[in-house]
C-alpha cells in the first residue's frame, strides 16, 4: 500500500470513529443483517442515521444510492463498528445478491429505478432459487414463466426461501423456454410478493425458528421490465448472484465468532471449568479456528489492497469458515457439560449460544453452496482436477 493510501485510510478511520461516537444508538442488536421490513425502533433509528450519512450498501456506486467504498474502506468501517460495538447493517438479499446482479446485468434504467428502492428499504427481497427438486443442481428449476405481452406469469414452488414473510419482492429463477437446454431458457425476474397470488408457508427448522418458507406462485405476475439480463439469460445472472453469495459475510465472520466465544467462555468460567485441561483444549481449538478464519479473510483483503486479482482464498473462505463454525458448535456443546442438554426457560423454543452455534453450523455447511459443491469448485477451478 502506498503512503498516500495509508494516510487516507487512517483519516477515514478517524472519521468513522468520530461519527460512530456522536451518532451511536443504544440498545442495538449485535447482528446487523436486516432481512425483514420490521426491525426494532433502535435499529430503525440506526438505519435512518446511516442512510442520511450515506453509509448503507457501502460497496454500491454512489449514483445508485450506495457509498462507493472500496474493500479497504469497508474493512476499516467494519472494524471500527465492531470495536465500537455497533452493528454494521447489511440490507439482506437486496444488498447482498439482487444489487450486485442488477449492477452487473441490469439496464441503466433498472439500476436507477431499482437500486435506490433497496437502499431506502422500500423493496425488501427474498430469494426464489431452490425448489424441492433443484437444490445443489439449481439449473434444474421447474417453476414456469410464461411471457404474455409486457408481463411474465409465474407458476411453481420455491423452497428454503429465507424471510419470505417479511419481503415485498422475490427474485425468481424460472424456466421461460422449456424446449431449451437445461442452463438456457432460464430467466431471472423480480416478482412482487403482495396481492399477487403468492402463498408463503413457513418451514419450522431444527432450531425452532421459522426463517425459511415454501413459496407457491400461482399465475403470479411480474413485469417484463423487471427481468434482469434479458429473457433466457437467467443462468448468467444467477452465476453472478451465487458468486456474490459465496462472498457473503465478506471477510468478517470472525467478529460474530468471537462474540459467541466470549459468551461460551463466560459460562465456562461461571461453572468453574476454565481450569479443566480438557475444556481448555477445546476452547483453545475454537479460538484458534476463529483466528484462522480471520487470517484467511485478511489475506483476501490484503490481496484487494495490493490490487491483485482475486486469489484462491476467495473461493476457500466459505468452506473454511462454515466447517470451522460447525466444529466450534461441537466444541461448545462439549465444554458446557450438562448445559448442553438444557434450554433457557420460556414458552418459545429459545436456545443458548452453544446450541445456536451448533445449529448454525449445520445450516451454513449446506446453504450458499454445500461444502461438497465448494470442494468441487476448489478442486476443479483452483487445482485443475478434471470434471469428469
Amino acid at each position, binding site marked *: 500500500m502506498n503512503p498516500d493510501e495509508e494516510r487516507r485510510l487512517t483519516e477515514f478511520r478517524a472519521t468513522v470513529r468520530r461519527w460512530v461516537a456522536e451518532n451511536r444508538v443504544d440498545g442495538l442488536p449485535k447482528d446487523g443483517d436486516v432481512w425483514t421490513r420490521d426491525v426494532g425502533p433502535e435499529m430503525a433509528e440506526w438505519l435512518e442515521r446511516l442512510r442520511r450519512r450515506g453509509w448503507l450498501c457501502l460497496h454500491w456506486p454512489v449514483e445508485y444510492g450506495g457509498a462507493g467504498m472500496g474493500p479497504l474502506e469497508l474493512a476499516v468501517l467494519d*472494524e471500527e463498528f465492531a470495536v465500537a460495538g455497533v452493528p454494521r447493517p447489511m440490507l439482506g438479499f437486496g444488498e447482498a445478491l439482487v444489487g450486485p446482479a442488477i449492477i452487473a446485468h441490469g439496464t441503466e434504467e433498472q439500476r436507477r429505478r431499482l437500486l435506490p428502492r433497496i437502499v431506502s428499504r422500500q423493496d425488501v427481497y427474498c430469494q426464489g432459487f431452490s425448489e424441492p427438486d433443484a437444490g445443489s443442481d439449481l439449473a434444474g428449476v421447474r417453476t414456469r414463466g410464461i411471457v404474455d405481452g409486457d408481463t411474465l406469469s409465474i407458476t411453481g414452488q420455491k423452497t428454503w426461501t429465507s424471510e419470505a414473510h417479511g419481503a415485498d419482492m422475490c427474485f425468481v429463477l424460472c424456466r421461460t423456454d422449456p424446449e431449451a437446454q437445461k442452463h438456457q431458457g432460464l430467466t431471472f425476474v423480480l416478482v412482487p410478493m403482495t396481492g399477487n397470488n403468492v402463498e408463503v408457508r413457513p418451514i419450522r427448522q431444527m432450531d425452532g425458528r421459522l426463517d425459511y418458507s415454501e413459496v407457491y406462485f400461482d399465475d403470479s405476475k411480474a413485469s417484463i421490465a423487471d427481468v434482469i439480463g434479458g429473457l433466457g439469460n437467467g443462468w448468467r445472472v444467477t452465476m453472478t448472484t451465487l458468486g456474490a453469495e459465496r462472498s457473503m459475510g465478506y471477510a468478517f465472520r470472525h467478529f460474530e465468532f468471537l462474540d459467541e466465544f466470549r459468551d461460551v467462555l463466560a459460562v465456562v468460567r461461571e461453572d468453574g471449568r*476454565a481450569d479443566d485441561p480438557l475444556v481448555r483444549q477445546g476452547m483453545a481449538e475454537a479460538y484458534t479456528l476463529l483466528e484462522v478464519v480471520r487470517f484467511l479473510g485478511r489475506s483476501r483483503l490484503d490481496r484487494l489492497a495490493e490490487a491483485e486479482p482475486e486469489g484462491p482464498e476467495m473461493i476457500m473462505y466459505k468452506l473454511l469458515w462454515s466447517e470451522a463454525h460447525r466444529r466450534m458448535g461441537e466444541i461448545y456443546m462439549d465444554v458446557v457439560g450438562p448445559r448442553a442438554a438444557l434450554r433457557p426457560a420460556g414458552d418459545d423454543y429459545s436456545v443458548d449460544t452453544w446450541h445456536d452455534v451448533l445449529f448454525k453450523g449445520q445450516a451454513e455447511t449446506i446453504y450458499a453452496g454445500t461444502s461438497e459443491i465448494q470442494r468441487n469448485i476448489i478442486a476443479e477451478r483452483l487445482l485443475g482436477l478434471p470434471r469428469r
Partner: protein
Amino acid sequence: MTLAGYTDEQKEFQRLVRQIVNDRDTLAAAREVDSAGCYGDSWRGLAEETGLAGVAVAEEHGGAGLPAGMMFVIAEELGRGLFTGPYLTSCVMASSLLRSYSDGPGRAALLESIASGAVTATLAWVENPVSWLVSDTVATRAVSTGSGGHRLDGVKRLVVDGVTADVVLVLAAKEDGDLGLFAVGTSAPSVTVTPSETLDLTLRLAELRFENAPATEIPLTAGAVEALERTLDLARLAVAAAQVGAARRCLELSVDYAKTRHQFDKPIGTFQAVKHMCADMAVAVESAWASVAFAVRSLESEPERLRTLSPLVSAYVCDVYRAVTRDTVHVHGGIGFTWEHDAHLYFKHAQSTAALFGTPAELRELLATRVGLAGAFTPIGFGDPA
C-alpha cells in the same frame, strides 16, 4: 510483507533458495540414515554463496542485511525440500537469542562466525525428555573457575543438531541458584555427544553430557528462561513456515498424481472422494500460510503478539501438516507407502515436527494460558489497520 503474498524481493530470494535446494537433491539426503545433508563443508559453501546463514544477524556483525520476514521465506523453501542442515538451530534460534537477549563481549564474534557459516550453534535446555517445553528445574550446574570462566556438569537431551553443532548454548544453574546460559565448545573431550535414533532422518537429535566442561557465560538482558521461551516462540513460527512449504509440496504431488494416475479408465482426480481430499488439503495449506504470514507480519508491527500467535499458529499448522501428509500417502495408494516414494519423508517430518518444541496439545494449553482463558481474556488485537 502482506497476506496477499510475498514481495518481489522475497520472491527473488525464494527462487534462489529453491534453486539451491533443488541442486542439492535434499530429498535423497532425507532418505538416507546418517546422511551428511547440508552440514559441514556443504553448509559453509552454501552460507558463502547466499548469505542466508546471517538472516537473523545485524549487518554490523556480518549479517546479510535481509529484511524482516525473510527468515520465514527461507524456512518455507527449506521445508519444501526437507533440507537437512543447521538453519533452524544456528541461524534462527542461536542467532536470534544472541541478537535479542545478549549484549556482552563475545556476542559479536559468535554472531559473525555463525553468519559466515564457519561455526554452527544450537541451544540445549531439555533435561527430562518427557517434554520439549522450557522448564526452570535445571540440574546442570555451572561453577565459576574464578578467572571469568565456568565449568559445566550435567546432561542435556533432545538437543537438535547436537551432533553437528560447534557451539552449544546450555541452560544451567549457577552457584547462587540463578539460571544462566553458557556457551560450550562441543569438541572438548569433556563433552560427550550421543546421537539419538529418530523417526524422521532429517531431525538430528543428541544427548550431550558435560563433565567439568569449560564454558563461557552469555550475559543476558532478560532472564534465561524468558529468553529461551521467546526464542522458542520464534522457532515454532520458523518450523511452521517450513511445515507450510512442505505441505504445499505434498499438495502439488497429490494433485499431479490425481491428474495422471488412471483407474476405471479415467484419472482418479475425477472421483469426488479424491477431489474432495485434494480440496481440503488446499484449504488447509492456504489457511496455514495465511496464519504464518499474519504472525510474521505481526512480528514487525506488534512483536508482543507472538506470545499468543506462536502457539496458536504452531498448533494449527502442525495439525494441518499431519493431515495433509496423511492424505498425500492415501491419494498415492500403495506407492505412497513405499520407501522409494517421497510421501513417507514428508509424513515422518510432519509427525516429528509436530512433537518438536511442544506437542499441539501442549501448545494449545500454552495458548489457553497466554490468551487468558481463566484470567483476563485478551484476544489478539482486532483494531489494527487493514
